[in-house]
């Protein structure tokens, strides 16, 4: 089966075509195929998070596969975003927060004593719900990350800016106005800019917090296609409210409800044959 997957990656260049064949292959597969093909990149063990004395995440244990798209679905307020923010330790900036349990990235505990927050965050690009361009030019937005991590040479920066703008499919639209402010872009372009900015620090993981929910259909389609294109190089974790989006692009799905993980399984499995009653009801639209 794994060989089959590899074959798929080799022969199909168009992301959508690849996706389709992959899905067909996966549909025949069974069990934890994805987890076997992709070793876990992030492992969460017995994670409990309290925000202002409220128990937000309850004993969460899960694995996020390497180099695949994982979608976290579930109704609003079930702790999806909190979970995502625990991954890159942005949560600890909030007031009155208590975190128990382990989050392992490549086997290392991110809450360990000798861990530097900055290097964890560098490992994970975050794409927030609303695009949030930094108050500077398009060029400087992309160059911001590399500059922070010590790259000063103009030539290198130029190359990087072009590379990552191309990767985010934005280069052709902005190459003539790299010096203009980032806020002059449309909101869909801004989101792709944010993606490019995140990629420029060479992360291993991309975290998307409802990354397409503020965008128009065409822009969100572009972002989705980007995710599909990027899944060979990055582990992508998406929190999403749109079930259809999860159906389209997810390899692995985690369903959460009221701070608990109800079900985690490969996409094909969870959508065609959910094990839990709650999952089935959510997928059928009884509640959202």
């Amino acid at each position, binding site marked *: 089966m794994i060989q089959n997957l590899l074959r798929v990656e080799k022969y199909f260049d168009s992301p959508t075509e690849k996706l389709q064949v992959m899905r067909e292959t996966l549909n025949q597969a069974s069990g934890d195929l994805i987890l076997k093909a992709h070793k876990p990149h992030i492992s969460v063990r017995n994670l409990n998070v309290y925000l202002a004395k409220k128990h937000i995440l309850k004993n969460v244990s899960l694995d996020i596969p390497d180099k695949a798209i994982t979608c976290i679905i579930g109704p609003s307020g079930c702790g999806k975003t909190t979970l995502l923010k625990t991954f890159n330790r942005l949560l600890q900036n909030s007031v009155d927060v208590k975190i128990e349990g382990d989050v392992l990235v490549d086997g290392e505990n991110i809450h360990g004593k000798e861990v530097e927050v900055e290097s964890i965050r560098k490992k994970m690009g975050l794409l927030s719900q609303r695009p949030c361009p930094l108050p500077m030019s398009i060029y400087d937005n992309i160059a911001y990350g590399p500059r922070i991590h010590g790259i000063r040479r103009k030539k290198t920066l130029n190359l990087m800016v072009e590379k990552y703008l191309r990767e985010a499919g934005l280069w052709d639209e902005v190459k003539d106005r790299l010096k203009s402010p980032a806020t002059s872009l449309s909101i869909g372009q801004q989101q792709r800019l944010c993606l490019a*900015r995140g990629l420029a620090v060479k992360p291993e993981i991309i975290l998307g917090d409802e990354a397409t929910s503020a965008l128009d259909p065409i822009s969100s389609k572009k972002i989705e296609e980007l995710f599909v294109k990027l899944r060979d190089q990055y582990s992508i974790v998406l929190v999403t409210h749109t079930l259809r989006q999860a159906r389209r692009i997810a390899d692995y799905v985690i369903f959460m409800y009221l701070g608990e993980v109800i079900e985690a399984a490969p996409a094909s499995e969870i959508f065609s044959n959910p094990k839990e009653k709650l999952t089935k009801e959510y997928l059928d639209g009884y509640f959202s």
Partner: protein
Amino acid sequence: MNTIRYNKYRQAKEFLIRHIMLLLTLVSLTFAILIGISLYYKSVPILDHQSIWGLLSGSSWRPLKGEFGFFPFIMGTLWVTILAVIISLPLCLLAAIYLSEYAHPYIKKIVFPMIDVLAGIPPVVYGVWGILAVVPFISEKLAPHFVEFSTGYSILAGGIVLAIMIIPLMISVFIEIFDALPGGLREASLSLGATNWQTIKKVVLRKSFPGLAAAVVLAISRAFGETIAVLMVCGNVSEVPKSLFDPAYPLPALIANNYGEMMSIPLYDAALMLSALLLFVIILAFNAISRLVLIRIERNFAL
């Protein structure tokens, strides 16, 4: 069944409320204009006698001989105000950054009320404290290192006292500006692996620069008009100050010290009115210029 006919009563009320509010807005604006006009009207006698440039640039103030030179007072005002801002700006900026970006909520809970207390102390108390603490410190400890003799009643004393007076205002406005920034901005920078300090330097300060500039302008306007505390520690000698340890005589102090006395001297009354008008115009011009600068800054920083 509800009709959609014109409800006369409701519409009349709407009309009335709207226009009363307009009227009240105009009234409050009119006061500013009225003050300006009446000050000008009162200072016309002296303007008839002497040219405005002569008055502004003249540096001798001898009312008995009919010499009214405002230059020392204008310089005194500027020196004290600028010194106060130079002292308080870095202090306030760093304090505000610490409180809004680094401080534990627990610390904030203690510090914010203290800032409010500082803001609530009456100016005269600051003045007394200046006389008891700042003035002796300058004359005994500080001045001997720099000049031969200073009474301590000086620009420096005025600047320090004024700086302390505008600190609470500046800190609380700065914090408000930092808190008004969208939180996603910091998260965006942090999630790229930036440290807190890098985020503050390159994102927070950059984004809030127009607001910070406006806050400084506000503080300067306050400092210009501050009278009693400055009057108590500045020495009030009508000479153009040459160093920080020289006494000065700011415009508000001139008016407060002399109005109501020696009114028998011809033109004295008009001269004081002119100084009030000057203060009025300086603050007005300062606000106008800074508004223009702010608009330009905002355009350049519209990112």
